[in-house]
């Protein structure tokens, strides 16, 4: 559905996207995660047709997005930094978007009024609180009836109830209309709950992109206690991403499936061994460890 192929974008000599390639399947909720400056917002602006790639292509359903109004009419977006015309209310912006998006759904606009009761549709958006502005943005974006919804830090500023409400709406659209949602966020715990696909970006490239289940199945946290206090020499072909020790308990982050890793470690006759699934946040941290972005112990 959404495909970015070898996209390169340079700003004043700084390469923000360095041959980025990613693919979000139709009807998926694709979480884009990465450290600050990895290029998340930049690729989202390419996908919404705002930026023109220096090289490569950005496609939606096989069609180039840039300068393609027919494709852009099927995409709605909520950027990290919202914009509304000076003194324009939600209602004003609704009328504006209605003039651009052929599938703008006025009935849905009325229906969603109940979902966002705290947002006065006649109050200028700039006078609303940050959370209400976000609600207003969701309200308008969902009325565009998009096939692709591009969200940059979408629930930042929303209270927990409204977060659930918004995610529920989004997932409803995904289920009912097969909408593809591309979401960038640093809130990995939340993404873990809603995303079915994840792409990890670093230095303008996608390091890994898989379904969340694949990602979680391919990396395992082992907690092991051996007879000896020291960690025995492990097989060279075992890809250990991280090792830590508390007392006699060794914690290993190992790339591979839990069963396979357990079997291979069993030969060292541990006293205690347990395979634990990693959270998305842990996967993010340990995967980026190899990219020179590990959490460091800092002594001040």
């Amino acid at each position, binding site marked *: 559905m959404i495909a970015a192929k070898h996209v390169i974008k340079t*700003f004043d000599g700084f390469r923000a996207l360095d041959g980025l390639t990613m693919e979000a399947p*139709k*009807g998926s909720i694709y979480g884009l995660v990465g450290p600050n400056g990895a290029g998340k917002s930049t690729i989202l*602006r390419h996908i*919404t*047709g*705002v*930026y*023109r790639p220096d090289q490569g292509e950005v496609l939606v*359903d096989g069609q180039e997005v840039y*300068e393609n*109004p*027919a*494709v*852009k*009419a*099927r*995409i709605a*977006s909520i*950027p990290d*930094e*919202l*914009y509304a*015309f*000076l003194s324009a209310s939600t209602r004003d912006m609704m*009328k*504006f978007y*209605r*003039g*651009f*998006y*052929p*599938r*703008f*759904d*006025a*009935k*849905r606009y009325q229906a969603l009024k109940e979902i966002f009761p705290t947002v006065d549709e006649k109050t200028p958006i700039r006078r609303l609180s940050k959370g209400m502005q976000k609600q207003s943005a969701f309200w308008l974006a969902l009325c565009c*009836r998009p*096939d692709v919804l591009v969200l940059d830090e979408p629930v930042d500023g929303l209270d927990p109830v409204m977060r659930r409400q918004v995610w529920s709406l989004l997932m409803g659209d995904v289920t009912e*209309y*097969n909408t593809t949602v591309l979401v960038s966020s640093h809130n990995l715990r939340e993404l873990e709950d809603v995303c079915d696909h994840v792409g990890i970006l670093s230095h303008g490239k996608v390091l890994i992109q898989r379904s969340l289940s694949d990602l979680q199945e391919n990396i395992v946290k082992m907690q092991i206690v051996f007879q000896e206090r020291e960690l025995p020499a492990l097989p060279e072909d075992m890809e250990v991403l991280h090792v830590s020790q508390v007392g006699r308990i060794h914690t290993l982050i190992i790339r591979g499936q839990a069963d396979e890793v357990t079997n291979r470690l069993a030969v060292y006759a541990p006293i205690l061994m347990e395979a634990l699934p990693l959270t998305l946040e842990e996967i993010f941290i340990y995967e980026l460890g190899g990219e020179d972005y590990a959490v460091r112990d800092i002594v001040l």
Partner: protein
Amino acid sequence: MNWEGKTMRSETLSSKPCRVCGWFNFTLFQKNLTRFWPVWTLYSVLWFLILPTNFLTSRDRIIRHEGAAYYREAVIDLIPSGIFLSLFFGVLAAMAVFSYLYNSRAAGMMHALPIRREGLFLTNYLSGLCFFLLPIGAVAVLTLLVQVYIGVGLDLTALFLWTWCQAMFSLFFYSFAVFCAMFTGNIVALPVFYGVLNALAYGLYLLFSAMADLFLFGYYGGTIGMDHLIVWLTPVIRLGRTVGSSGAPDYRLTGLLSIFVYALAGVVLAALSAALYHRRHIETAGDVVAVSWVKPIFKYGVAFCSAVALGTFFWSLFFLASTNSAWPLLLFMLFTGVWGYFVAEMLMRKSFRVFRKSWPGGAAFALVLVLAAGAMEFDLTGFESRVPQASQVAEVTLESYSLSPLDSGGYGCYRLNRPEDIARVAALHQAVVRSKADLPDEQGAYASWIPSAAYPNWDIQISGTQHLRLTYLLKGGGTLIRQYWIPVDEDLLKNEASPAAQLDRLINDPEQILFQYFASNGCQEGDPLLSAELSTLDGPAVIPTDLLEELLDAIQSDLAEGRLGRHYLLDSEERYTNCYFNDITLHFAAAGADRRYDYTVTITVQSTAGATLKVLEQAGLTETLVTKGDSMW
């Protein structure tokens, strides 16, 4: 998902469906008109006050005295004021409708909309243009209604001309502002760019002239021969000079060609703006310069302008009075030029920390400036030493304005086309070039005065400078102009090879003197002398009519023999002794069908003019003659 099916379903849900049209969006067009109403409202109100309200308040006067003729004169006289209104509102409208380009959030929102860039540009451009066209149309209709109400008649032609001119002015200035808007991502920079580009050609011309004037010996601002082009490239000046009325009785509009050309330029600028918008990088929102290839032009342009404008300014503050050398000026230019270069870098990079990365460019600029100044100062181009051979010259005009006495022969503009005269001017020019080191750069550099021993009322000038401008019309069709200030003192005037002595001989050539007094003042042979008078301390004394012919013959004879019309490069004692306070004024009638006017020729009486003095004696006026030195004025 079935895309087509979904579209159809959604359209049934939408209360007001729209189609995806990539080239124009009516919603955006409407939004611009409603969002930026202060711009077009203010423009409308101003014209409303200037035209229909003005007619309404003048209703009684129009009905009683002036009638419909008032409309024509008032409307045509008001057309040029539209130049300045369009100049101001043009940039306001462009700033309004393209304001989203200067804010990254707004730029992101607008460019995510399902419309092509051409569509965004066209919609915004047209809505901005309507800020002018709709008010102009409305004011024209209102003015027409007011004319109908007043009831003394209509002047549709003048009103049509007003409407057309205002539309064309606004088309040009608005398109020009939009063109400027495409080069920047900063809304504050837009009016600055617009103002600078409006005056760029003229400003650069002045700056270059200022620099060349200081470094090039003999340089005259008109040398590059671009005045005409420069005025065309400075629209406000061109339109301001040409657009107006022919005056009574016709009251026709002038400057139609200029208006038409600039309107056409407006269309071209709009097309160029569309092309620039198509290629624009949206991420440049906030940047002072949004187009990459313009960045070096901006950077080095700011550096050059700073070097010449500020460098000259500071140099004139500290050194103008003490030295004529160009090298202290170069130091100031280097300092201010490099300063300008780094300021431009800071603006573009939005950081004060630019020195480490951009010093090579600053050093390169300084080097080029030194080389250019050196090339000019040491005349590597041969500009200063160039003196055309007499055989190459068709005509030369010698201008020297500070001559005494200041009568009709003292304006100092001599057009010479005889080979021997041209050769004399070329020799003078050679003498000037040879004595470059001795010549001053500025008027008055050598001027000195001492009290006169003979005339207690006067100081006499013992040295000074004389302006000299030479304009060669070459046989090949080109023009060569040089301008100098040459030193003059008694010793130099005695030295026949000096420029001062050569100039003195040229301007006091009897043939030239005769030409200066009569032919150069429009006098033709056969023009009847109507009257003549002699100025005296008691007022003008009329010369009897029966002596007029004799007086004219005497004057012409004295001029031809070099006894009269002597002009001096210094206000010397000889000048005070030889020249009388008294002037003879001859009143002529121009003869001929196309020359129906009177003119006068004024000649300062000189003590050597024997024939003329004889006629004055016959008229009984010699008693009134007082030498300049003996007079108080």
